[in-house]
């Protein structure tokens, strides 16, 4: 049994480990393995297809970093005890839960879901900050046709890094902060089903970030976010950073998915039947349930990519019997469900808010659930619409076109639910309310342009163009991020105990939405003119649209920075929030601010659904 140190006493190991020891141990491990690999790894034979020795050294060093970091943060203490046939003591579990640790608990392997939720919120903001900086570098370089501000190879790497980092940011932006902080309280649970896995899922993301940063200094990620093979097989050593990043992130997503699913299935409060379970919970569960099969495939695709580079296998090398199409299939089997991993929880969060700010029940709860289920089911059957022009299985284009276009139906159901809830409601005009309208507008444009892209003849013309880039920004950013920001403002009082500054958040909302529509309408325009994606310079005829897009991007940047200030300033010195500032009816608003360690003194019993604001008028 561990005895915890009082002042001046020697600290137990569990007390010593934190993010600083993690970084130190990870760095030392990486350097040691790097030096050993340099000294002992034999040179490649003449017939080695790629620069495999360097790849081996890089990958081994990154794996060492990962193991060192996870050891240094304390992730291995409990498994080590388990191997010894022991378990953590009650005191140790309380220490892991962050009891009485104050701000230090945010820098440790803390298991309390609320700490993990805040950690996710901060890292999501950091990810968006880095991705946003990269976006501004891209747009600045594209401000003039000749480009040239940034070296083309650095530009390629910036585009690839921006892509993958923003995808990861959008994947975690709702299920991370709000799925962890809010969801357990919303279902009436004291914590997640597997608190240690919860901490693990977060710290894996931190561990994953370093190889991605590392990659920038060893050749970058020159392939775009999709890292198609055999292009990735020929890319510089930085590609190994991408591979490690994805592998670690995929483990994090799998762990989080299993944890959230189990929590919702097993730990809902007494009386919270599926019909009384808030729609946000359905969104979160659908998201992680989709991620559960998708991310192991992504993980596998990158393991094979790493083997092709470091061990000379040829999964994707056509010259040696492999297939680039194999990679494309594996990638998009993850890649398209992933779109809905991002979108569903964001839309569900807005569906959760719609009754609160219209004071009406959710319009047709069952249709909302069917819509989420329908999208989830169909989303695993549409991946090859990304490959119409690849030459793989042309006969399958028509079936994939059909399944893709069918997905409009359940998506339409979610639109119907939102519009039906707003219809004749007494609108309380907050930023979340405005966000519902913004989502309807942006998602409509993203959705309709998606129908064109799902159509094989139209896609033959549009694929690989800026039109595609504008389309997915309308869905992932215009719909997804809009929902996530609304969720932040809605749950900010519960997570921080403060009200977010209303005026600044309004200014940020309008600047962001106006800037967004200016930027990506400009991008649609140049896409239709024929400008390809991922180019560092372009022909003069695309100048006007690109300039408009760059102006829009700068407007978004100003809006986002004002929002960032509003969050930081309100968190530090905002007005104290009442327990239930929105007069909402879900369980998270029944607990005090700040939320106590185990949420509820007595677990609640649910006797009705959460939308009893009155009857919907049809």
């Amino acid at each position: 049994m561990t005895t915890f140190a009082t002042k001046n006493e020697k600290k137990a190991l569990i007390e010593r480990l934190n993010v600083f020891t993690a970084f130190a141990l990870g760095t030392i491990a990486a350097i040691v393995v790097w030096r050993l690999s340099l000294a002992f790894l034999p040179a490649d034979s003449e017939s080695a297809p790629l620069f495999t020795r360097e790849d081996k050294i890089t990958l081994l060093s990154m794996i060492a970093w990962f193991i060192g970091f996870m050891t240094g943060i304390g992730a291995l203490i409990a498994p080590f005890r388990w191997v010894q046939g022991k378990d953590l003591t009650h005191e140790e579990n309380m220490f892991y839960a962050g009891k009485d640790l104050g701000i230090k608990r945010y820098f440790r392997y803390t298991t309390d879901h609320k700490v993990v939720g805040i950690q996710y919120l901060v890292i999501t903001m950091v990810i968006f900050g880095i991705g946003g900086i990269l976006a501004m570098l891209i747009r600045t370089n594209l401000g003039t046709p000749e480009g040239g501000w940034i070296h083309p190879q650095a530009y390629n790497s910036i585009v690839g890094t921006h892509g993958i980092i923003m995808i990861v940011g959008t994947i975690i932006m709702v299920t991370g902060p709000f799925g962890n902080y809010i969801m357990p309280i919303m279902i009436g649970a004291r914590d997640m089903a597997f608190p240690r896995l919860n901490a693990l899922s977060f710290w894996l993301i931190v561990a994953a970030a370093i190889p991605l940063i590392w990659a920038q200094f060893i050749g970058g990620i020159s392939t775009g976010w999709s890292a198609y093979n055999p292009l990735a097989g020929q890319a510089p050593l930085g590609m190994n950073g991408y591979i490690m990043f994805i592998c670690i992130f995929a483990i994090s997503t799998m762990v989080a998915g299993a944890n959230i699913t189990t929590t919702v299935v097993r730990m809902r409060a007494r009386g919270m039947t599926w019909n009384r379970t808030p729609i946000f919970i359905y969104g979160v569960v659908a998201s992680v349930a989709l991620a559960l099969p998708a991310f192991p495939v992504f993980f596998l695709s990158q393991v094979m990519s790493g083997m092709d580079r470091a061990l000379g296998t040829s999964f994707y090398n056509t010259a040696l019997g492999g297939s680039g199409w194999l990679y494309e299939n594996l990638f998009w089997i993850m890649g398209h469900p992933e779109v809905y991993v991002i979108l569903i929880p964001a839309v569900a969060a807005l569906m959760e808010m719609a009754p609160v700010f219209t004071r009406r029940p959710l319009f047709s709860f069952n249709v909302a659930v069917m819509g989420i289920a329908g999208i989830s089911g169909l989303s695993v059957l549409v991946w090859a619409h990304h490959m119409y022009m690849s030459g793989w299985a042309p006969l399958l284009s028509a079936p994939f076109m059909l399944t893709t276009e069918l997905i409009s139906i359940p998506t339409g159901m979610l639109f119907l639910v939102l519009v039906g809830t707003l219809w004749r409601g007494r609108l309380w005009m907050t930023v979340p309310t405005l966000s519902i309208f913004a989502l309807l507008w942006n998602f409509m444009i993203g959705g309709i342009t998606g129908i064109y892209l799902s159509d094989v003849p139209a896609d033959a013309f549009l694929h690989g163009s800026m039109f595609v880039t504008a389309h997915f920004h309308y869905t992932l950013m215009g719909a997804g991020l809009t929902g996530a920001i609304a969720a932040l403002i809605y749950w900010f009082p519960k997570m921080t105990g403060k009200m977010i500054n209303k005026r600044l958040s309004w200014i940020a909302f309008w600047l962001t939405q106006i800037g967004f529509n200016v930027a990506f309408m400009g991008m649609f325009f140049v896409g239709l003119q024929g400008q390809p994606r991922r180019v560092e310079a372009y022909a003069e005829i695309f100048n006007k649209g690109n300039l408009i897009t760059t102006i829009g991007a700068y407007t978004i940047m100003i809006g986002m920075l004002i929002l960032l200030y509003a969050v930081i300033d309100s968190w530090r010195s905002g007005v104290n929030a009442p327990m239930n500032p929105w007069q909402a009816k879900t369980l998270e608003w029944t607990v005090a601010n700040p939320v106590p360690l185990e949420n509820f003194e007595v677990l609640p019993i649910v006797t009705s659904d959460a939308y009893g604001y009155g009857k919907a008028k049809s």
Partner: protein
Amino acid sequence: MERKVFGALGTVIIGIAVIAGIGTYVAAAKNDPGITQATPAGSFTAEDGKSYPQVKLNLNVYPNSGFGGHHGAGGGAHPDWVSYALGGPNGEILADAKSGTNFQVPPHTAVTITVYQYDSGETLNNDFFAYVRGTVGGTAKFVKSYDTKAKANASPETVITNIPADMVGHTFTLHGMSDGKDQLFVSVPLMMSIDEEVGAAEEGATESGYVQNPTKTTFTFITGDEGEYVWNCEFPCGDGTIARFGNAMSAMGYMSGHFIVKA
């Protein structure tokens, strides 16, 4: 409220400063080797009797980057990659050449390029590039063996329109699409040096590590209006990569660069 306005404004300014700082760093880190101006060389009279100002460039192609030059001592980050570089007027190896593979020439000018080819070769993927294209008269002058010590041709100079596709060392291919209006496509095959001689030279048989007698190819083309082009080698020489179009073939400063037509 005033504090919040200043706070928000400050955040925006700090954000822009961070982006500008990172952007400036990334832009500076591109380590652009600079641009070589072609040397004026009098005038040139075309077959139609029209006279143009003339400029010259002397280039060498090496089997590795050990020559120093713009890759630095020891060949820089990739000493085993093949590379173009500036050369002396008689094919001399310039270990102190600071600029790389970006060239600038004036518009409406005759550009004469001489390439000394120190590398061996194999077979092209596409015979198209075995032909001389886009030069004055559609030809190039070729010397199979140029003695860099004696500074004289060791074999007779011939006029060529093509070379055998299985004897190509590299190509100099200036791609037609520019960022301006004028199209300018030039492609000239560069004959290989003899395999055994290249191998022996690299193993220390010569002082410099390169053959004494490279092949020499000279060609002239006329530039149009201002524009910026990309040129590269079309022989698949990026060893160690699938299809051999990676490594040196996909990195500016080795087998590709910019060709700027500007007054």
